[in-house]
């Protein structure tokens, strides 16, 4: 009766070894493995703790922000404000623990507050993004552009654009400390990645995120609270940006509102894209984002270690992004 064929035999999903499918599904892992093998063979002193540490600390903040970005993109959105929210959190924390904002009863209170308040503030800004998108129905790219522009300004105004230098080991543990011989920030990153991956896979909220991104109208008709899912996702992205901001300033022993998180939105989106998350929403992998960030970092490291200038690595990064997205498209068509 209908114009299209609807009487297909029930599809059996045999273990298909369609090279295209394999490439799209495991391409990122294969690329990562190849990169590691290449480095083991050709890069001197690759298999050392130091190399691991260097590479891990480079990707930590990108991956943490990338996790939030993955969730946002999974709902079919985008968050350009992450770098500015990092700057806000990064500017706020030293103001608090240096006692410039309000007098502190005890230094440790300041440090505790310096962990909590900036992250919550960044989360609140993230929620505001979600509010703009769901309430005023502004497209995500423009809604988050507002805080991209204004957010860094807010951070700069708070600090009057001054560099805040500090030496507070208790606070800086988040960026410089070590746990079981590993950088604490790397441990934190792994915990966040695993928690988000678990959340996406096992919780109602996680599945609702994917349902909203996969088919918003169907999700709404199935009673999924689309508006609240979106708001929460942007809030999480804000919270994670706040944490990343703290890590960056702790690592540098200084907060520079002009520089913290600059260009982070693009690094995070690149990691998400290379990791295999569908940019139009509905399919997402947090672990993939970790792999994507590692690939981008390792390519850069490989090129640098082999005498290629850093600038050329940018071009390689561009090629990887286009290739990854193109491969993804091929796999779906």
């Amino acid at each position, binding site marked *: 009766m209908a114009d299209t064929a609807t009487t297909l035999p029930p599809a059996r999903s045999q273990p298909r070894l369609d090279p295209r499918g394999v490439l799209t599904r495991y391409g990122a892992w294969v690329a990562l493995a190849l990169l590691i093998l290449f480095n083991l063979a050709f890069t001197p002193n690759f298999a050392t703790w130091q190399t691991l540490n260097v590479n891990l600390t480079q990707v930590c903040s990108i991956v943490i922000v990338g996790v939030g970005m993955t969730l946002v993109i999974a709902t079919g959105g985008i968050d*350009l404000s992450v770098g500015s929210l990092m700057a806000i959190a990064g500017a706020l924390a030293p103001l608090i623990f240096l006692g410039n904002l309000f007098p502190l009863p005890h230094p440790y209170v300041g440090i505790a507050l310096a962990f909590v308040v900036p992250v919550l503030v960044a989360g609140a800004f993230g929620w505001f993004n979600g509010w703009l998108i769901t309430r005023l129905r502004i497209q995500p790219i423009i809604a988050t*552009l507002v805080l*991209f522009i204004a957010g860094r300004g807010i951070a700069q105004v708070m600090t009057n654009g001054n560099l805040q230098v500090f030496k507070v080991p208790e606070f800086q543990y988040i960026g410089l400390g070590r746990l079981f011989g590993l950088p604490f920030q790397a441990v934190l990153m792994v915990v966040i990645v695993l928690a988000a991956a678990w959340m996406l896979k096992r919780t109602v909220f996680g599945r609702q995120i994917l349902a909203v991104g996969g088919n918003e109208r169907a999700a709404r008709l199935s009673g999924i609270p689309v508006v609240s899912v979106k708001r929460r996702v942007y809030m999480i992205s804000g919270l994670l940006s706040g944490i990343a901001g703290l890590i960056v300033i702790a690592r540098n022993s200084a907060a520079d*509102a002009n520089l913290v998180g600059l260009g982070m939105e693009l690094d995070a989106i690149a990691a998400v894209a290379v990791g295999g998350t569908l940019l139009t929403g509905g399919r997402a992998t947090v672990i993939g984002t970790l792999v994507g960030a590692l690939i981008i970092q390792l390519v850069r490291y490989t090129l640098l270690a082999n005498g290629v200038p850093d600038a050329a690595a940018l*071009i390689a990064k561009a090629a990887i992004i286009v290739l990854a997205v193109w491969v993804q498209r091929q796999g779906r068509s």
Partner: protein
Amino acid sequence: MARLNTAQLFRGVGRYGVLLALLALLLFGWLRYENFLGSFNILTVLRYNSMFALVALGMCFVIITGGIDLSVGSTAALGSVVAALLSPYGLLPGLLGGLAAGLAVGLINAFVIIRLNVLPFIATLATMLAASGCALLLADNQSVSVSYDTAFIEIGQGDFLGFPIPAWIALAAYLAGSLVLNFTAFGRTVLAVGGNEDATRLMGLPTTRVKAAVYILSGALAGLAGVILAAQFGAGQPIEGVGWELFAIASVVVGGTLLTGGVGSVGSTLAGVLLLGLIFNILNFENGLGWISLSAYWQSVIRGALLLLVVAIQARLVARTEESHA
């Protein structure tokens, strides 16, 4: 009748709102500060903002088709480096070199978006990185001094009839842009593609070619902005241009162009650029009065707030128009 009024309001805000805001700001400045409308101040503002104006013009065309171009900032940086490197050979090689660099980036954008079918957002994100990499490679990671032996720096620092040359260039570009958008079949197709791509294709118009053309145009204008950047500051700047793309998007949106495409005006975009540019200027004057001391950093906050205001008004208007058509 409500429908007509909404549409009128929409048109009014889209077309004249930003102009009114700009005039109000100028009036405010003129009444409040001495020398605000003095030729030195105004010419400096125009000279400096002409680069942004060029980038925003290209962005305006891209956004009207419903796309986006994130690569304009680093394309301008690349253009400035190429122009600076070629400046010892004279004005023309420098100018054409920068332009060609931008054109090349635009061509790559068009290819990746249309042939490889990659989302504009991601495609131009990638070329943004690549252009930046090329600029750094060519410049060897540092600024490239412009030759002062040739007439090249005139493009950025010279005057013609008492008016800065970069402002002349921007003015010419906007006049040409306005002419193209309003009085050529190409321009009308650009607007139609953004308004309803399927309908435009069914009307038998060359949608693919038009989409490719706007990215190429945007690249070329960004390259030209780079040439002016190099000439104005006496150096090719491989790390300049960060955030230009988002500033350009903000100017275009403040100018009343819908980010969903299909509606846009070249003149309003110029007004958007000047409005955002003047905010910085006003802050300086305000501080000069000595009453309060607002750091220059307030400009981003105010720009962001302005953008928010504009998109919020737009969102309301669009929602109301849709309602009245349901």
